[in-house]
């Protein structure tokens, strides 16, 4: 193993690999300034594909550094820019971390005004971050639309979803205020994250191992409600306007397996181990 200085001589470029969390991303940005390096890629460890002639530097989460970057960004670039940084950390698209890093570089080193850097919508370093922000926002909206709760024995409400970006932290506020009378869990099966609301405040739980999920059976009324909802769904469609392309546009097929009214249409994808199966 080479020492860091020798490695730096061997390779001309560097990539930062963080742990995939927002704090990790902010720590990586801090590290770039601290070490006076300009990484070509800033990606989560599990997604990083090192390029030729590139040294990989693992970045550990440092909460103190992350907090300094957060305060600086939110203060000087505005809350919208910081919200876009959060979206970049939750986004599962390759290059989202890099886009966030490039924006910070532009805002702090090149932009005429930090305050207005994020408004420069057509700049090549700002546009990618704004696109990611929009993408995560769209996915969040889809979850507000298509999350379906089931009533379980014991008074718990349970929802399963499969968003492409890990948007559970962004939807919990909405559901926790709207359904503040019921305790509920929203489980994201793609990212192994669950949002839990118990009646006062909500928190996130890492459920990396989906097999350990122990869900109580659904109540008797649940099946009746599902049947009623499916009957409603079937009868509101107007045959003469049949337009499945438009439906797929608004309600992507990848989400159908967790949408109650669509489940019967996909026999191959019917869920195993569902409380209502």
């Amino acid at each position: 193993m080479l020492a860091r200085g020798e490695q730096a001589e061997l390779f001309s470029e560097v990539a930062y690999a963080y742990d995939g969390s927002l704090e990790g991303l902010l720590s990586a940005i801090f590290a770039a300034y601290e070490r006076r390096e300009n990484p070509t890629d800033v990606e989560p460890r599990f997604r990083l594909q090192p390029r030729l002639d590139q040294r990989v530097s693992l970045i550990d989460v440092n909460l103190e550094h992350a907090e300094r970057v957060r305060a600086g960004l939110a203060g000087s670039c505005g809350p919208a820019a910081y919200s876009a940084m959060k979206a970049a950390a939750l986004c599962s698209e390759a290059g989202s971390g890099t886009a966030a890093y490039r924006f910070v570089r532009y805002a702090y080193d090149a932009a005429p005004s930090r305050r207005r850097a994020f408004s420069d919508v057509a700049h090549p370093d700002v546009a990618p971050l704004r696109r990611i922000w929009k993408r995560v926002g769209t996915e969040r909206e889809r979850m507000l639309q298509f999350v379906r709760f089931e009533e379980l024995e014991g008074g718990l409400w349970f929802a399963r979803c499969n968003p492409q970006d890990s948007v559970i932290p962004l939807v919990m506020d909405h559901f926790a205020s709207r359904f503040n009378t019921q305790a509920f869990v929203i489980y994201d099966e793609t990212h192994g994250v669950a949002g839990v609301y118990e009646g006062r405040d909500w928190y996130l739980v890492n459920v990396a191992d989906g097999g350990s999920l122990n869900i109580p059976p659904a109540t008797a009324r649940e099946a009746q409600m599902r049947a009623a909802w499916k009957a409603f769904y079937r009868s509101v469609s107007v045959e003469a306007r049949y337009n499945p392309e438009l439906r797929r546009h608004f309600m992507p097929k990848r989400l159908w397996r967790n949408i109650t009214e669509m489940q019967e249409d996909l026999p191959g994808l019917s869920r195993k181990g569902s409380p209502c199966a």
Partner: protein
Amino acid sequence: MDLAEKLGVLADAAKYDVACTSSGIDRDAQRGCLGSTTSAGICHSFTADGRCITLLKVLMTNACVYDCAYCVNRVSNEGVRRVAFKPRELADLTIGFYRRNYIEGLFLSSGVVRNPDFTTELMIQTLEILRFEHGFRGYIHAKAVPGTSPELIDRLGHLADRMSVNLELPSQQSLALLAPDKSRQDILAPMRRIRENIAEDREVRAMMRRQTAYLAQTRPKRKTRAYAPAGQSTQMIVGATPESDFQILKLSGALYQHMGLKRVFFSAYLPVNDDVRLPSSDAVQLDREHRLYQADWLLRFYDFNVDEIIDADHPFLDPYVDPKANWALNHLDLFPVEVNTAPYEMLLRVPGIGVKGAKLIMKARRERALGEEELRRLGVAYKRARYFVTCNGRYGGVGVAFERDALRARLMAPIEGGRHGRRSARTCEGQLSLFEEVETPEKARARGQARRLDAAPAALAEPAGPATPERLFAC
């Protein structure tokens, strides 16, 4: 008859109502109460025809004493099975759906049982259970039945977020022909009443908020609900009667201006009944409906006047070019505009630039000069906009003559309607129809011979029997 089956019948009867929006009001959640609303609305599902489901859209009952030619639920359709919800049953169902995140709230309409007042009272009863017993803070859209007494309209409005009265048909003559039980006066009276109530309520609330006295403000003991805070809307059927687009748009423009409506919905006429008064063609004028909505958007979001979109000499919208592009083609002397200096109002009128695009351009050009590259990055439809703009003095539409016909050929775009369904409006004008009357699944259902692919055939074939209010509401 179980709940699912009843719901199926009553949702089926309500589906021809096109309005399904949960927009126009922001109401935060309250600890201990179920529900909230957001002003943009949330669509919770999409039907096979691509329309959104945001509210539980049902009829209180599909029994009706009226005989409107175009309606499935008319009294002379004897094959239709008549059912009704009890107020509590419907309220509980709404709550059940809401808690599962299936819906954003309730859209309550009804056939007319006995008389309009009796019907409205049933609706009020339902909404009172929802609002007062369940403490429901979600969205409620209530339909005012034409001919209801003003006192009941007032009560209904305080429970609902949005009210609507269906205009049904664009003119008095058509209404007299197809809906003989309703008169224009019956429809416009509640509409006016709702407008006045909304204005009055808003004024009173504004006055209460203002600090006007030296002494400590006295707040009213009991908080009252706002009157239809999300405004009112209406809908009309397009294509059942011979009115032109010009008449329809003039009417909707007047409704926006004088009635203060939030939305005017258009519903392409769909043949569900066999009736000599109705057009014999099977064509559903979906493309026409689409163009009318485009014109409607121009009225509401693009600062257009009706007279700019359409005039009496060309009473129908161009089927091949959208109304905004059509306006631009007729006013080529105003183009091309420079994206870096043009005012917002002018950017809005460029084909290919929408409200979002125009706002982004305003924002982006404060920081830098915009060229083609930047415009594309902003998500503007540059392939349409290029003929009407210059970027830093450079015109992007070089190669195409800057005159009406050449540009029109570039801007013509067929309406994307999917590859299914009966978009028979696409047949050319003057083309002969081979069949006078066409059998459609909707007509079969109106006769009581439902052949649904997914429903058990025996369940729906049961004879309907006479529908008396007593039988329906034997609680």
